[in-house]
Every structure is written in structure tokens, then in C-alpha cells.
């Protein structure tokens, strides 16, 4: 026994701990996979034309809806099912819980339609007839007419209205120009569903938001994000590269440079919200306020530059990502062997010529890597933007046909903030969640794609360097 105990202890010690550590890796990967799977399935599933069910209840009620999920009934063994029923203008709610026990029978009729309307959100029900220019069309003619008409933009459609019937037999008149999309999901074949799915993804990417951000697309947010990020890179890259060149090639390598380098590195760890505070205090209130009092005093007290806007947001994020660019560029510069610089100098090149002809071309991939990492960070960053200029819903795009075409003072929409706003400040958060998943997926894809590009660039750079030695 005495001999066994230390062996057992050793076996436990050396045998079990590694497994716990391995499990940590497995768990992290599991969580990551779960998160990505969740985002992909829910995000892409949002666009799939879901089957609509018509359910007759024991009480005689008829419900038309899209089944969402099931949950156990409190204090009972059976389940209840949540249906998305739409028709908020008629029933006052988009959702209905139905106990499974109460269902007498359920069918999937082919003539059920789903309309997306600009006020009131979705309509689920049936199409009875179409009235347009004095004519009343029913049956096949009505379908043909609707398919033709709704393919055109709202402004080119003939005046007219759809006669719709809800599940419980109420009739609703819906004018043609208020309808944005029209689907008969149950009648669609697989191929048609895939086509519709693709169309809806395209609409999501290319259209503006509707119904207080709970529906529609995210085009202005994509545009705002991209514009802000471009402006930011235009600001941050030259300054970051300049600072890195100064630190690495020009400054005396002494204690002070060392301290500055540590300081710059640490700024990468300073919370982004602190940069937001700085941006608000210095750029918006300080510089923006001064610009207003000098150039736009006739418009005061309503601020022009003295409030958050595109320029201030780009500047703030440029400051935030400056350490990223500096650190990446410095790494690239440090990796260039001194023999290259000496070679150029020995040929009679001045410092500037050595820099521009030998050092910078060799450091370009590193600079690009830094820039991409900065862009990736800026694209996912939301907190500082909340202070310096992001908007829930920007009435005007920051770029338009009006002089000077690029309006740096305007507020803009941002994907990350759009996500936050839709998820937390919408009227019907439940209804918005599928959309939020789609936005989250888009954001994650953009950021991951940027990061992967940076990784591959860095990898390529290292391999190239490896060949040289």
C-alpha cells in the first residue's frame, strides 16, 4: 500500500491533468464552433422562405403562422409552440403561443401568402382578389397580375389594392405601393426557394432598413462602416508608418525610445471606450465646437461639427488603431536585415533614399498587415462610436450628389451599432432577432475575412523571408 500510494498519486497527477488541459482546448474550440454554427444557421436561415402552417384549434380558432420554437408548458408535461403570425395591424401582436394539445389539425395549404409591407410589417394569410384601375381580378389572373406588378418598383406600379383574407376570415385592403415583397412559400419548389433565398440575401445587403430597423436591409450600415473604415485607414496608415519609421530608423535607440515603444504597445490595450471619451471631449466638443463658432456661427446653437460625425468617428478610430499599425510596421522594419540598409548606404544612398528604395518596399507587406488588422479592429468596434457619431438611422447618406459630395459632419450608420440598436432598442425584439443574427453573421464574416487576409499575408511574408536566408 505504501508503495502504491505515490504511484497512484503520480498516475493521477501525470495522467489526469494533461487531460483537463486538453479538454480546455477542446472546450474553447467547441464554444467557437458552437458560436459560429449558431450564427451561420440562424443568420442564413433567416432568409429561407419558411413553411407556413394553418392550424385549427380545439376552440375553433384558426391560426396561420410560421412555427418558431417549442417550449414545455409550465406545470404540465406537454409542450406549447410559438407561431409567428404577423398581422400586427389586425391582431395587435406578431406572435402567438399555441399549446400542442389544443391543435385539432394542422395543414400546409399552397395558397398561403406572406407579404412584407412597409408599415406594420408582415402579413400572413390568403389573397382573394386584386382591384386595379376599376378591374377586379380573381383566381389565376390575380396571381399573374400580382407577380407582374410587384416585380416593378413601387413608384411604377398601377394604383390598386390587394384584397386579403386573414386566418380568421377578416378582410383587409392593402394598397399595391405599400407592399415590398410577396411570397407563397408553401407553393414553392426547392429550386424556387433557393432562388428566393438568394434574392432575399441580396435585398438584405442592398436595401435600407424598414420598420424602425426591425426589417429590411443593412446597405446604409455597410456603406457607413466601409466609408468610415476607409477614411480611418487613410488617416492612420501614413501616421502610423511615420511614427514607426521614426521609432525604428531615426530615433536614437536609447532608454527613452524603449519607454515610448512600451507605451505605444500598451495603448493597444487601453479600452476602446477611453478613446471614445477622448474623441468626444477633444474632437467633438473641443475642435468641432471651435470650428462651429468660427465658421458656422450662423447655424448655432444647432451644431454642425460640434456633434458626432463621420470625421470625428474616423479620427477617433484612427487614434485607436494607431498602435496596431505602429507595432506591425515596426515588426516589419525590425525584420529587415541591417545588411540591406548598409548595402544601400555603401552605394552612396542618403537616408531618405535607403528608406524609400530599399526599406519601405521590403516592409510593405508588414504595413499592409498592420493596416488590415487595424481595419478589422475598427470594423468590429462599437463602443467609441456610440460617443462620436454613429446614428440609429441616418436620414442622409454621408456621400450624395450635393456639394461637397462627401459630408464629413454627417452622422452615419455602422453595422456593429446597427446590430446593438436592433437587438436592444427595437419595439419587438423577438421579431428582430433573426435579422440581428443576419447582421451579426455579416459582421463576423467581414472581420474574420480581414483577419484571415492579414494572417495569410504575414505567413506569405515570413515564407518569403525564409527563402532569402
Amino acid at each position: 500500500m505504501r508503495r502504491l500510494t505515490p504511484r497512484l498519486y503520480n498516475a493521477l497527477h501525470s495522467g489526469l491533468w494533461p487531460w483537463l488541459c486538453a479538454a480546455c482546448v477542446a472546450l474553447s474550440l467547441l464554444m467557437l464552433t458552437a458560436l459560429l454554427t449558431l450564427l451561420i444557421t440562424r443568420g442564413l436561415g433567416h432568409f429561407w422562405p419558411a413553411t407556413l402552417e394553418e392550424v385549427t384549434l380545439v376552440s375553433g380558432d384558426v391560426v396561420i403562422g410560421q412555427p418558431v420554437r417549442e417550449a414545455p408548458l409550465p406545470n404540465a408535461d406537454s409542450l406549447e409552440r410559438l407561431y409567428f403570425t404577423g398581422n400586427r395591424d389586425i391582431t395587435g401582436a406578431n406572435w402567438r403561443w399555441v399549446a400542442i394539445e389544443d391543435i385539432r389539425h394542422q395543414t400546409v395549404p399552397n395558397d398561403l401568402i406572406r407579404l412584407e409591407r412597409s408599415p406594420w410589417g408582415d402579413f400572413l394569410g390568403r389573397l382573394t382578389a386584386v382591384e386595379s384601375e376599376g378591374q377586379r381580378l380573381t383566381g389565376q389572373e390575380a396571381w399573374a397580375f400580382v407577380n407582374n406588378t410587384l416585380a416593378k418598383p413601387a413608384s411604377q406600379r398601377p394604383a390598386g389594392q390587394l384584397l386579403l383574407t386573414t386566418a380568421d376570415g377578416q378582410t383587409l385592403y392593402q394598397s399595391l405601393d405599400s407592399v415590398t415583397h410577396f411570397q407563397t412559400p408553401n407553393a414553392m419548389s426547392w429550386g424556387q426557394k433557393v432562388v428566393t433565398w438568394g434574392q432575399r440575401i441580396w435585398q438584405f445587403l442592398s436595401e435600407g432598413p424598414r420598420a424602425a430597423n426591425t426589417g429590411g436591409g443593412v446597405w446604409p450600415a455597410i456603406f457607413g462602416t466601409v466609408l468610415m473604415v476607409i477614411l480611418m485607414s487613410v488617416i492612420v496608415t501614413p501616421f502610423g508608418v511615420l511614427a514607426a519609421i521614426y521609432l525604428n530608423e531615426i530615433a536614437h535607440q536609447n532608454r527613452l525610445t524603449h519607454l515610448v515603444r512600451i507605451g505605444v504597445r500598451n495603448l493597444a490595450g487601453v479600452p476602446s471606450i477611453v478613446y471614445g471619451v477622448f474623441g468626444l471631449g477633444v474632437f467633438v466638443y473641443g475642435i468641432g465646437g471651435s470650428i462651429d463658432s468660427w465658421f458656422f456661427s450662423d447655424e448655432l446653437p444647432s451644431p454642425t461639427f460640434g456633434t458626432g460625425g463621420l470625421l470625428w468617428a474616423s479620427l477617433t478610430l484612427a487614434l485607436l488603431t494607431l498602435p496596431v499599425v505602429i507595432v506591425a510596421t515596426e515588426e516589419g522594419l525590425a525584420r529587415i536585415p541591417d545588411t540591406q540598409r548598409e548595402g544601400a548606404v555603401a552605394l552612396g544612398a542618403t537616408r531618405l533614399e535607403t528608406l524609400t528604395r530599399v526599406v519601405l518596399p521590403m516592409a510593405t507587406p508588414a504595413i499592409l498587415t498592420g493596416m488590415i488588422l487595424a481595419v478589422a479592429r475598427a470594423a468590429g468596434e462599437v463602443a467609441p462610436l456610440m460617443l462620436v457619431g454613429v446614428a440609429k438611422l441616418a436620414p442622409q447618406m454621408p456621400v450624395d450628389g450635393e456639394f461637397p459630395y462627401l459630408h464629413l459632419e454627417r452622422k452615419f450608420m455602422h453595422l456593429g451599432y446597427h446590430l446593438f440598436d436592433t437587438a436592444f432598442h427595437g419595439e419587438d425584439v423577438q421579431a428582430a432577432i433573426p435579422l440581428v443574427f443576419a447582421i451579426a453573421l455579416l459582421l463576423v464574416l467581414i472581420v474574420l475575412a480581414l483577419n484571415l487576409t492579414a494572417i495569410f499575408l504575414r505567413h506569405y511574408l515570413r515564407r518569403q523571408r525564409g527563402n532569402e536566408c
Partner: protein
Amino acid sequence: MTPPRLPLSRQPLRQLQDRIATGLITAGGIGVLLAILAIGVFLIWETLPLLSFGDALTLSTLSPLAWGTLKAALAAMLFATPIALGAAMYSALFMSSRLRSRIKPTLELMEAIPGVVIGFIAGLLLAPWVERNLTSTLLLIMWLPLSAALAGGLWHLAVARLRKRLPLSLAGIWLIPWLACMAALALWLAPLIEQHWLGGDLRRLLDQRYGLDYATRNALIVGIAMGFAIIPSIYSLAEDALADVPHSLMEGAQALGASRWQALWKVALPTAGPGVFSAVMIGAGRAVGETMIVLMASGNTALFSASPFEGLRSFSASIAIELPEATPGGLTYHLLILAALALFIFTFVVNTLAEVVRQRLRRRYQRLGGAL
């Protein structure tokens, strides 16, 4: 075959260009560095007016927020540190190098997932789910480590052929389905356990017996979500420190008869200790300053409560919510800037400490690598 001499025609111009460029770069570089420095100066400058408002008010307004910040960071660290360090130890010393070259970038990519996405999932999906399935959650947290140990035990009992096909060096991968199955098992068992031992409803039990309130968005959720967000940064730095321990040291220990784990525990960990420490510090810095996750998953209630099931409100979230509405120059404005200054100083100190420790470690490795 000697070509004619080259005239030196552009000398003065080139010298001038060089001087100007050097001057510009120096000015630009120093300017950028000063701009960075300006952040600290601005924050201190803007908090100075607070001195005239009297300090009692400041303390009573900010202390629940400070508590909330620390509580959120602590919860996240409790969740993230063991996982991140365990993963770092495994991937630095046990994992096959081919797998490691794939897994490490993957885990580091986790860091890139925007906080707003994690916050949304935590606040709108995880929080209601945990509220409905509190027992399952707590059971999972206890059961998963046990199931990993169980996997290790079963592996030692398994026949040699199976062991060869499922080596420890690949365990990071093949444990994934095992853990998923074990998690499913725990989820299936949880309601039964709740029925039999916890009186049917754990939340009611907590409330009645211990007087613990349960808020949907609470410190537990924040801990899990923010822990998930800071795992990669701790992991990445700790892994670097452990993987850079000179091989000769580990081999020396193993040559003396130590098992791989003992060599890790007695040699690698003490040698890489400072690096691991600095990784944890940097993780803490991130946890303290993270905004969106706390904002979306914490409920934002300024409470003085140690309960993991109650909400909290942190500095960063308060700044994000209140600062856009605060009038510049007002008390709230200055208070929030003081909060930002606190965050700035905390993270700056923590990161500097971590960086200094890390550089010292690097020098130590160079010495060791040179001596051995």
C-alpha cells in the same frame, strides 16, 4: 573597357531632400507620439474640475460602478483563466506540432469576434436560456471538467490499439465530440436532478433558502461571455511564454526521470511564470475595459452585491450610456471622464507591468538559451 566617369550632379539636391525628409519624419513621429500622450493629459485635465465639487459625492456615485467593473472582470477571469492557461499548457507542451500550427491561429482568431456579437448572443440568447435552465448551467460547469478527467481515466484503461488511435497529442480535437456528448448528457440529467434534489426549481430554492435574487442578465452571464472574449488573449500570450521555454530545460528534467507533466509543473511553469503572469494581467486589462459585452449582458443595474446572479454596471458601460447625454462641463460629464481616467490608468499600469515582465522573461530565455 572603362566607361566615362559619372558626374555627381544631384548631390546638393539629394542632401537637401534627405534633410527635409528626416525632419518631417521626426516631426511626424514625435507628433504622433505626442497625440497618443495627449489622451492621458486630456483625461487628467478634464477631471481636475471635480476637485471643486467635493469628493463625498464622487465616491458615492462611482463606487458601485467600480464594484461592478471589478465584479465583471473577476467573473470573466474566473471563467477564462483556467481554460486559457489549461489550453496554453496543453498546446505548448502536449499537442502535436502540426495540430498546434492549426489550432493556435484558430483560437487567436476568436479574439477578432466583435464584442457586440458576443454581447448580443449573451444578452438575448444565453441569458434567457440560463434563466430557464439554471440547474443545467451549473451542472455543466461542474460536469465538464469531471468528464474530461473521466476521459483520461478511460483512456488509461483502454486497450493499446485504441490508445494509439486516440493519442494525447490529438486529444484537443477528439475530445470535442466527447465533451459535446457529455454536455448533452448533463442537459438531459439536469431536470431529473432538479426534480429529485433541488425541489423542482433551483431559482425558487435560492430565493427561499439563501435570499438570492435572480436577474436575467447577471454577473454569471457576463463572466461567461466576457470570459469567452478574453480566453484568446490570455491563451496566446501564455502559450508563447510556455512554448519558448528552452527545450533543453524540459529535456533535462525528463532525463532525470520526471514525467512530462512533472517537467511542465516543476520546470516549464516556474521558468515561464512571469510570461504567464503577464498574460493573465493583459487579460484582466481587457476584461476591465470591455464595453459592449458588459453593456449588453449585465443588466446595467448599479448594485453593491456579491451575488453572481445579480446584475451589475461597469465604468465602461456607464460611459457608453450616459456620456452622449451628459452636458459638457457638468458634474456627470466630469465624473464619467474620471471613470475613463480610472480605466486608462488601470489598463496602462497593468499592461506596462506585463510588458516589463515579459521583456525580462525574454532576456532570461536568451541567457538560458545561450548558456545551455
